[in-house]
């Protein structure tokens, strides 16, 4: 089993599908897979010579991921790459947002890392929209981690002075625990999901700098209070910045695009 993402490396490989030249490469991810187990040696006549000992550890469980994330962040900063990590429930509109954003940025230097458990549909969509994309399939893994990102941006050959979007696996639980080395984390929700999303998944909103509320074209048809949603999110994270948009009609898109050009 993989020590970073918990995936089972026997029949559940994390694979990377590169969409640069329409070729699909399948690679095993190169996490550290430690399969050497400890085999204590029992010497026949050595009874009761064992010593018990308590060791103080005090080590953060996510520290290894954190370390790799900082390394990614250093790389992105050195190359002037703006890395953005987008998390949401499935279907909030992450891929649609990216398709429209790529077009709005007029194919300026944009790269996309797509996370999905099984398919490469999203990377196909991004490629059609005009940006190089790499698909990470995590199998049973329910989030992207810093190691996967490190492998992916190297394969994708992300250019200097570019924007790198990372579409995380669709769920609001564990992607929020794993720093990928992004400069900005964007949590997305859509008006069809209910205005209490931040109350149900506070951690997702806690570590994000930006909250995109999507599908505002559907506001007339759903029971969703924009004020309530924002209030919930602000309780968890008073500094979070909101963009209310429709990735379908492009309402509210201007503000989002101008922020992207000068993010803060």
């Amino acid at each position, binding site marked *: 089993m993989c020590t970073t993402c918990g995936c089972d490396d026997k029949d559940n490989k994390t694979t990377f599908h590169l969409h640069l030249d329409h070729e699909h490469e399948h690679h095993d991810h190169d996490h550290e897979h430690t399969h050497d*187990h400890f085999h204590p040696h029992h010497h026949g006549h050595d009874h009761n010579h064992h010593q*018990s*000992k308590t060791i103080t*550890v*005090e080590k953060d469980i996510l520290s290894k991921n954190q370390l790799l994330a900082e390394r990614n962040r250093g790389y992105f900063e050195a190359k002037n790459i703006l890395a953005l990590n987008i998390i949401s429930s499935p279907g909030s509109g992450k891929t649609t947002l990216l398709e429209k954003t790529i077009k709005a940025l007029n194919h300026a230097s944009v790269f996309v890392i797509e996370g999905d458990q099984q398919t490469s549909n999203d990377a196909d969509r991004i490629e059609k929209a005009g940006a190089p994309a790499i698909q990470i399939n995590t199998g049973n893994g*329910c989030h992207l981690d810093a190691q996967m990102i490190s492998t992916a941006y190297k394969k994708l050959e992300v250019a200097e002075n570019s924007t790198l979007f990372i579409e995380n696996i669709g769920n609001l639980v564990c992607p929020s625990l794993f720093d990928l080395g992004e400069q900005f984390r964007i949590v997305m929700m859509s008006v069809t999901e209910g205005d209490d999303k931040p109350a149900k998944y*506070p*951690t997702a909103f806690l570590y994000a700098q930006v909250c995109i509320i999507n599908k505002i074209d559907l506001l007339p048809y759903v029971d969703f209070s924009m004020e309530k949603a924002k209030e919930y999110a602000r309780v968890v994270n*008073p500094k979070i910045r909101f963009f209310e948009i429709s990735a379908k009609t492009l309402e509210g898109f201007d503000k989002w695009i101008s922020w992207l050009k000068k993010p803060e």
Partner: protein
Amino acid sequence: MHELSIAMSILDIVKDYAEKENATEVTEIEIELGSLSGVVSESLVFALEMACKNTISEKAEIKIIEIKAEAKCKHCNQIFELENYFAPCPECKNSGYEVLRGKELQVKSLKIEQ
């Protein structure tokens, strides 16, 4: 599922320390878990027990120290237990606070046999 990945990270740390100490067996793993950490205690114990099989920690007792979140009210400075992010200050009933603790997710200590 993400508890399994957390469990694997824990065993990674345990293995590092156990090897450094030439341990033959790990008999106890003590974990500090804040109520705002995003990790559910029962699921983590379950995942850890599964992940410990056939490792040096096979027989380890899993001890979870649950840390209740504590916050300081921004209005009246009252320090109070934060049941959830949306609970108001019990003293002045305002919301707006600073979280003091509750996000812990840490391997605290190990007991080993040498």
